[in-house]
C-alpha cells in the first residue's frame, strides 16, 4: 500500500536548481514510482537487447539500472546530462525484463528530476521545444494546427507545405468537436487557463521555467497577467 501522504512526484518546489549529485540520486530513489520500476537486476541484458536506442547509440538501459543500483551518485548525475536522453520511451524493456523492472520508467523519473532541478542538459534539450512549452504553459495543449509549418518539420516530408495552408478549412473536415480553432487543439476557455496558472504557481513550475528559460518566462508572465485580469474582471461583473 502506498502512504496517502506521498504525492505522485517527489518534486519539492524549493529544490528547483539544486544539483549536487547526492540529492539528485536521493530524489530519484525516493520517487514513489522507484520501487515499481527497479526491483533488483540480474544483469541479463534482455532490456538492452530489446532496446532500439541501444542498437544505434551509446546507450544501455541495463547500464542505467546498474548505475542507479550501485548508488554511484556522480555517475548517475553524469548520465543525466546526455546518456539517458537517448531512450525513446517505448517500454519494450519493461515488457521483457525478467524481474519486472521498467528501465524506461526509471529513465522517466531521472528525466523529471533533471528537469525539475534545471540541469544544464535541460536548457540544451528543451531548446527545440520552445513553441511546445509555450503552448503547454499557456493553454495546456502540446501541438496545435498553427504549429505545422514547413520550417519546423523538415523531416515530415514533402506534404508538409500543403498541410500548413488553409488550416481553418481543413479543421472543418475533422469529425470531432474541435470548434475549428487552429491556435489550440480544442477551444480552451480562459477559466481553464486561469486554473492551470494557479497549479503551475503552487507546484513551482513557473519558478522552474524562470530558472531554465528566463525569456520564455517573461512572455508567459505577460500572458498570465492578461488572462487573470480578463477572468477576474468577468467574475466582478
Amino acid at each position, binding site marked *: 500500500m502506498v502512504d496517502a501522504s506521498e504525492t505522485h512526484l517527489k518534486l519539492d518546489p524549493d529544490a528547483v536548481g539544486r544539483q549536487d549529485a547526492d540529492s539528485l540520486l536521493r530524489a530519484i530513489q525516493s520517487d514513489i514510482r522507484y520501487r515499481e520500476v527497479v526491483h533488483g537486476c540480474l544483469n541479463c*541484458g534482455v532490456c538492452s537487447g530489446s532496446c532500439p536506442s541501444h542498437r544505434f547509440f551509446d546507450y*544501455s538501459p541495463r547500464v542505467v539500472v546498474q548505475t542507479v543500483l550501485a548508488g554511484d551518485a556522480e555517475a548517475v548525475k553524469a548520465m543525466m546530462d546526455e546518456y539517458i536522453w537517448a531512450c525513446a520511451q517505448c517500454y519494450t524493456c519493461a515488457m*521483457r525484463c*525478467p524481474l519486472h523492472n521498467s528501465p524506461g520508467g526509471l529513465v522517466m523519473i531521472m528525466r523529471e528530476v533533471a528537469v525539475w532541478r534545471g540541469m544544464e542538459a535541460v536548457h540544451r534539450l528543451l531548446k527545440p521545444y520552445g513553441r511546445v512549452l509555450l503552448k503547454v504553459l499557456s493553454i495546456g495543449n502540446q501541438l496545435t494546427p498553427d504549429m505545422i509549418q514547413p520550417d519546423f518539420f523538415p523531416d515530415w516530408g514533402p506534404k508538409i507545405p500543403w498541410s500548413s495552408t488553409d488550416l481553418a478549412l481543413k479543421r472543418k473536415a475533422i469529425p470531432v468537436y474541435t470548434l475549428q480553432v487552429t491556435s489550440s487543439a480544442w477551444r480552451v476557455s480562459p477559466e481553464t487557463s486561469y486554473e492551470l496558472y494557479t497549479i503551475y504557481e503552487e507546484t513551482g513550475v513557473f519558478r522552474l521555467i524562470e530558472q531554465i528559460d528566463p525569456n520564455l518566462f517573461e512572455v508567459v508572465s505577460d500572458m498570465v497577467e492578461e488572462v487573470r485580469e480578463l477572468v477576474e474582471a468577468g467574475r466582478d461583473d
Partner: protein
Amino acid sequence: MAKVMVIGAGPAGLRAAESLARFGLDVLLVEQAPYLGGALARHRYGGLMPYFDSGPQVLKAMTAVVTDHARVTVCTESQVGRVESTDGGFQVELMGQTATEEHVQAVILATGFTHFDPRRDAKYGYGLFPDVITGAELEEQMAAGPVHRVSNGAIPESVAFIYCVGSRDRQVGNTYCSRVCCAVSTKQGIELRQQLPQARIVMFYMDVRTYGLWEDQLYWRAQEEAGIVYVKGRVAEITQHDGRPLLKGEDTLIRGPFEWEFDLVVLATGMEPAAGTAALAAKFGVEREPHGFLRQAKPMVSAAITNRPGVFVAGAASGPKTVEDSVMEGDVAAMAVLEHLGVKATP
C-alpha cells in the same frame, strides 16, 4: 505385509518401488503413461549428464528389477481417483487400465515435472520458426539420427543454445532456477560436437550453473575439448532472416548489441510441476510450496516428509532435480516409509 503405493514411475518412483520391494514390502506402482521411466523414456534422452551414461541403459537398469519383482505390481495407464483416509492408511481408487480399489499404509508421490512450454514466452518465436527447438526435441533428434534443421533437413553449420527459457523470469511466472538446464545444454553441446565437427556452437547464458564437480567435467570440458563458445547475455528476441533464426540481444561483457544468425536454436526450457500435481496434492492433503511443487515439510530432517503423515514425496515433484538426485530421493522416501511403518530388521 504392509502395502505401499508409489505414484509416478520416473527415476524417483522406480527407485522407491525397488527399495521397498527389496525390504519385503508390497508395492503398487501407479503410472499414468503406458511406459516406465518418466522423462527419460518420454524424451528418449540419449546421454545423461554429468557422466555421459547411456540413457537407454540407465533406463533399462532402472526398470528391470521393478518389472520382474514379485512384490511390485505395476499399473501403467492408471490414475488415482477418490482417496479416503483410514485408521491405518489410505483407501485409494485407481482408474484406467487398472480399475480397482486398494488399501495402502503409505503413499509416495513421485509425479515429477513437465517441461516449460516455450510458446508461453513469445519473444523466442517457438512454434513460429521451425528451426527453434527445445532441448528435449534435440534429445529426440540425437536419439533418432543426425541432428538437422527442421525447416529443410540440412545439417546445421551453427547452433545456438539459449539458457533459462521459462526459468528465472517473472514475465512467465517462474522465478526459480531449474538447476539442470545449464549442465544438460553443456552436455548436449559436447555430444553435438561429435556429430558436427565444424559447426559453430554458442551458449547464451545469464549465469553458467554447472555447480560442484560439474565445473570442469562439463563447463571447462565444453570449451577445452569441444570448442564451445559461451556468450553472457540473455537473448532478447528471435526473428527470422533469409530463412534462418536471427538472435538479437546484448553481449553484456564483450560485443554489446548483436544480431546473430544461426541455423538451429535450442531453447533450454526449464522444469515446472507436472500437470495433475495440484489435483493429487489436494486429494492427499499435501501442501505445495509457492512455485507449485510439493512442499517438503522438514527438509532438514528428511527430503521425503510432507505435511501429511503417511504421504511422502520424491524426485522432481518437490522441485527441479537431476536424475541422480531423484534416484537418491527415491531411497530417502523408501526409508521414510519404513520408519513410518516401524519396520525393524529381523535378526
